[in-house]
């Protein structure tokens, strides 16, 4: 392994491993790759430490002690909710790796709370503290961090191996380019600029870049997570709404509405009326705990003089897409390799069906997946890079297509494209509740938009180029989403088809998707249902 080489006078580097994305998955990947002796560059679209869905919030972590029956119960509890699509072996290894990495965080000085018996409680992490620590540890490991440096496209060598990326450094007004023996995509999910907390950097950029290099997706139908949120605010922290009662505007209780299964009632009601909540089931202890567990949950209420425990406030559901959904880049081995040589995926950019099937129900699984998949992808990329040393003479080719290449059509307004995509994916009547006819109609419009992007002249200037690539990424993700949703003619996990209610046992498979001009889907068979887990749940 070799050190980072910098071309003097330009923002060009050569390293063993390039990580794209600096949230939990990206920083774990960087630290893990460096621990294997690799030289590592990490490029974040924003500021590594503040960027992404985790940094501004608190997150639960799927952390379960190995002793006793708890692990079995924990695996069993989500198996049916996820539509029997999780895999026991992956659940086990994520639980093990998460347990180990949380110990590492404790060793690094993360201040876990102590319970009344003086025992550290490690089932949650505070975003600002966690990500500040991860940045610090990455820097100490020798990782070169490029902030405000979104990637625009991947580079491949003559054999099709992914060998770096290029992008722009927004605050330097300069392009950047990193040549690397392997690349980890840790760019998060896609939340379609919905202003869900911390999610506006998550526009599916990594999905598009990976697909341009030939990568595939799995479970993109599990992409319609919506977070409960005060209607005026950005704080999509749904967990505490388990203490809420939901109301019509006139103060009548909304029957059946709830934060978990009752969320469909809210999604339906929001199509025709305002919905209100009041956290009136929280007792004095819970009220105090909420304030300390999630300081920013209470912040919007404090600033507006609303007491959410005694006063009704309007709520909405903001699209969290594949951030809290479970679909993403398809993983083909234990090291989180994609099907493209040299390309690895971690965190919300990758599929999380392996541990929770078609439903998350909370951040805990995603947080555990980020810790674990990041750790494995970084090590895997370091190992791949060891056998894939770039020669100085290697000619690398940019894979970027739509929105980057020269075409003769008119320039597109990225803002208009963003709105057009949002119009297809935000509405509850299209995405929360899905129907074959509506999906077909949306896909027709989205395919037309794709054609327009393909024919459009490139944007002028780096800021507009970035915005157009973000819009193009969202567009690409929406097409894999809806094509996969159309393919699954049943309701399973978070994917709800109003024309196909209920689970069809013949469709217990993964829906694989990919393609750019022509989006395709196929099926991947799964092993038999884990009957032992089902028994565990009944017990």
């Amino acid at each position, binding site marked *: 392994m070799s050190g980072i080489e910098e071309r003097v006078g330009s923002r060009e580097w050569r390293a063993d491993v390039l990580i794209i994305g600096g949230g939990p998955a990206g920083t774990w990947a960087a630290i893990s790759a460096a621990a294997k002796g690799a030289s590592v560059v990490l490029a974040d*679209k*924003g*500021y590594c*430490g*503040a960027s*992404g869905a985790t*940094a*501004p919030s*608190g997150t*639960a972590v799927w952390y*379960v002690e190995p002793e006793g029956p708890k692990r079995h*119960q*924990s695996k069993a*509890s*989500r198996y049916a909710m996820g539509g029997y699509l999780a895999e026991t072996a992956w659940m086990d290894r994520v639980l093990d790796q998460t347990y180990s990495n949380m110990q590492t965080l404790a060793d690094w000085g993360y*201040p*876990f*709370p*102590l*319970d009344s018996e003086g025992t550290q*409680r490690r*089932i*949650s*992490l*505070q975003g*600002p*503290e*966690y990500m500040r620590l991860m940045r610090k540890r990455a820097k100490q490991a020798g990782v070169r961090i490029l*902030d*405000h440096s979104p990637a625009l496209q991947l580079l491949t060598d003559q054999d099709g191996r992914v060998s770096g990326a290029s992008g722009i450094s*927004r*605050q330097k007004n300069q392009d950047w380019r990193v040549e690397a023996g392997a690349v980890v995509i840790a760019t998060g999910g896609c939340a379609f600029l919905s*202003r869900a*907390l*911390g*999610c*506006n*950097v998550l526009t599916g950029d990594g999905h598009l870049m990976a697909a341009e290099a030939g990568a595939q997706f799995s479970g993109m139908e599990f992409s319609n997570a919506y977070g409960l949120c005060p209607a*005026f*605010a*950005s704080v999509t922290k749904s967990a*505490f709404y388990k203490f809420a009662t939901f109301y019509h505007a006139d103060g009548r209780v909304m029957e059946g509405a709830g934060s978990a299964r009752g969320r469909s009632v809210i999604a339906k009601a929001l199509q025709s009326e305002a919905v209100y909540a009041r956290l009136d089931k929280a007792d004095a*202890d*819970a009220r*105090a*705990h*909420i304030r*300390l*567990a*999630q*300081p*920013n949950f209470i*912040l*919007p209420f*404090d*600033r*507006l003089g609303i007491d959410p425990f005694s006063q009704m406030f309007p709520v909405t559901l903001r699209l969290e897409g594949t951030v809290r959904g479970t679909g993403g880049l398809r993983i083909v081995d234990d090291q989180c390799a994609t099907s493209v040589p040299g390309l690895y995926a971690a965190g919300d950019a990758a599929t999380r069906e392996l541990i929770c099937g078609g439903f998350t*129900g*909370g951040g*805990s699984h995603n947080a555990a997946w980020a810790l674990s998949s990041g750790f494995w992808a970084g090590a895997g990329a370091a190992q791949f890079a060891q056998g894939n040393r770039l020669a100085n003479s290697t000619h690398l080719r940019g894979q970027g297509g739509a929105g980057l290449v020269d075409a003769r059509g008119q320039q597109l307004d990225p803002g208009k494209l963003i709105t057009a995509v949002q119009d297809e994916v935000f509405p509850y009547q299209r995405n929360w509740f899905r129907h074959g006819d509506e999906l077909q109609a949306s896909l027709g419009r989205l395919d037309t938009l794709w054609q327009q992007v393909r024919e459009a002249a490139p944007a002028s200037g780096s800021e507009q180029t970035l915005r157009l690539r973000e819009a193009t990424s969202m567009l690409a993700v929406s097409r894999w989403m809806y094509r996969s949703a159309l393919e699954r003619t049943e309701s399973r996990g978070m994917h709800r088809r109003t024309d196909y209610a209920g689970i069809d046992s013949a469709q217990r498979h993964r829906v694989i998707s990919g393609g750019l001009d022509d989006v395709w889907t196929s099926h991947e068979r799964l092993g038999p249902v884990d009957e032992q887990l089902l028994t565990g749940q009944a017990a």
Partner: protein
Amino acid sequence: MIELIDTERCTGCNICVLACPTNVFAPVAGQAPQIARKDDCQTCFMCEVYCPEDALFVAPYADRAATAAEITTQSQQWLGSYRAAVGWGKGRQSTASDDQSYQLLGRD
């Protein structure tokens, strides 16, 4: 959305320019930074957490700008409150050690 940089408190350190994940601020030589791309603000409050001078105020509205009256009333009371709640800053201790999530969330 970000509404205010208190120019009396701001020392021009530009930490907010660096920390903002959506690159909302632009540095201005010898002065407080400018809120250059307010439409890109995602109301994540990270700039407040990172500002060492408690000079920034983010109104809680995600989809609209606050009115002048709202900015005045709210910022007077709440400037620096979130940074204090997180326990960042001189003489403070991170409140991550007070995290009561384990009292609220079940095994899952």
